[in-house]
């Protein structure tokens, strides 16, 4: 019988980059964090040809209120990352996302957001479902093939407040890799809470590197029914450990990161981590966080809101209700 795992404190670095131009800042961040070097090392270790080495990037795209730059990862930054990979000879890059019931298809949302598809594929994980044994609370469920088969996975999340888990970053962004479009029915609820599903996915299909686009962050106390406020922080973050990365992101937002359900779950699963912060760690001011009372109320009321009757009622209320009925934690 397996004994409880050792709770050794591991050390990891999180890089914080600021500047005047997002593209230049990303270039500096990639250099400082050594992301490209890691991809090269991974390809060499696998003995793969760089052009055929499968890389998957998960940006934040299908946020239910995705009306502007405050809600999703800037496509220009994602394409700059793809270009940086292409410079090193990596040509099999997939930008992945899954469909959300009640929202337009991934391809349409990506096109509207500004993704060109030049040098990479835009993949709807919901359209290439394959069985996968996640174990634990999910068991055998579907996974997106491109995400499952990727040899190097990158989560490129968005820094924004979220009314169900305080804030989201690189870790909550992975929720969008769960391919069932009806997220509320499949990945929410007693026995498989959203944070459990999200962290379990990250545990079974590990992400090799995380980036967070906070250049124009999204803050505000509202729900998915309204877009967040665009808050220019001129900051990008990166790190190999998503828990540490999101922890630092929470600190930058001025909240206790441990209050986030997703980070709590990650702490339970992976244990504590010693974070070495590289960059400006001063909290963003102004930054309007969701109140913890609202998050707690959402947590209590969610079972009622998740019922078909409640979702139908919300949809009948018009566009804000429809967005609310199709929420995801991304």
């Amino acid at each position, binding site marked *: *019988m397996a*004994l*409880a*795992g*050792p*709770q050794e404190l591991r050390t990891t670095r999180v890089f914080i980059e600021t500047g005047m131009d997002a593209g230049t800042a990303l270039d500096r961040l990639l250099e400082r964090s050594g992301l490209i070097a890691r991809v090269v090392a991974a390809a060499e270790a696998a003995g793969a040809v760089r052009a055929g080495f499968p890389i998957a990037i998960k940006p934040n795209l299908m946020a239910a209120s995705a009306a502007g730059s405050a809600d999703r990862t800037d496509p220009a930054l994602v394409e700059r990352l793809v270009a940086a990979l292409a410079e090193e000879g990596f040509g099999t890059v997939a930008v992945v996302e899954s469909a959300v019931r009640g929202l337009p298809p991934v391809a349409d949302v990506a096109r509207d957001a500004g993704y060109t598809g030049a040098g990479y594929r835009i993949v709807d994980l919901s359209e290439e479902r394959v069985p996968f044994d996640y174990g634990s609370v999910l068991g055998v469920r579907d996974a997106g093939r491109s995400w499952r088969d990727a040899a190097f996975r990158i989560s490129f999340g968005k820094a924004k407040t979220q009314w169900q888990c*305080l804030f989201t970053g690189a870790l909550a962004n992975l929720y969008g890799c769960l391919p069932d479009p009806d997220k509320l029915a499949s990945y929410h609820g007693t026995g498989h809470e959203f944070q459990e599903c999200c962290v379990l996915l990250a545990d079974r299909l590990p992400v090799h590197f995380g980036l967070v686009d906070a250049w124009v962050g999204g803050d505000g106390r509202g729900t998915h029914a309204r877009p967040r406020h665009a808050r220019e922080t001129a900051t990008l973050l990166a790190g190999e450990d998503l828990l540490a990365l999101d*922890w630092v992101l929470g600190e930058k937002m001025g909240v206790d990161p*441990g*209050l986030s*359900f997703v980070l*709590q779950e990650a*702490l*339970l699963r992976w*244990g*504590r*981590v010693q*974070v070495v912060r590289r960059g400006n760690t001063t909290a963003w001011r102004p930054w309007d966080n969701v109140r*913890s*009372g609202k*998050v*707690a*109320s959402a*947590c*209590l009321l969610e079972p009622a809101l998740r019922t078909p009757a409640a979702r139908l009622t919300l949809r009948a209320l018009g566009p804000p209700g429809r967005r609310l009925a199709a929420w995801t934690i991304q």
Partner: protein
Amino acid sequence: MKVYGLNVVERLLDDVLVAIGLLLPVFALVAGILDGAFGASGTAGGLLLAATALAGVLLALGGSGMRQNAGASFLGYELLAVAAIGWIVCAFLTGVVGAAIAAGVLVLAFGLLVALRRRALRLRFRPRFLTLRNFDTMIAVADTMIDGDGREAVHPVEVAVTVDHLLARVESPMRKDLKLVLVITEWALPLLVWRPFPFSVLGSNDRRRAVEKVINAKGPFRDVARSLKIMACVGYYGDQRGIAQAGFVHFGLRRRSQGVDQSPLQHPDPFEGRP
């Protein structure tokens, strides 16, 4: 970075406890002044108002320190339930609408507090086999049984988690008995030292006294002591840090095991070839 830190629901519970706790004495005062409107008059009415106000004070105290004032919180919950029942009885006996409204509000407040507490604890510890009350007891048991004089390598919460996960994995009829042991520990053990409160809200010295009582006892209580010891040890030494603290090194990590062929021996099937 705390693995089992406070969560948002607990934070909300703190605030709600304090808010309700402050409102109840005010309500009791108003109801005392306007006794005709709420029907709480005479000695029984006075006791009801006092119970309502006291429940409020205890809840506010409990909400001001969830873990430190667990006893006050427990008593506050109990007294709030008693006060709610009292107001229901008052409404039936007097037929005053104000008493019925007060009863309804108190029942709702009690329901809200219980729901918040259950959700908060479940989110924080995620027990797989033990109930929330069992889990609280197990934490208190670990805290009592493992007296490392500040040198404990494993936190009592982690000991309880290890025990809970182990019990969730094993399949044995003993599991039910262990649950029963925790129930007895929670409710019966404190009575041995004349403490009419649950084991999990007692102070560490009183818990220690209660456990010492059962260690020295005879009959079924002796089995309770043994079970508590086993569970605490399994939880503590089932963790790698507890193992390391005891000086045990796994065979595969010992110097003399290095380079040794550890593949399992292969024996021929004794039944092979038999009809």
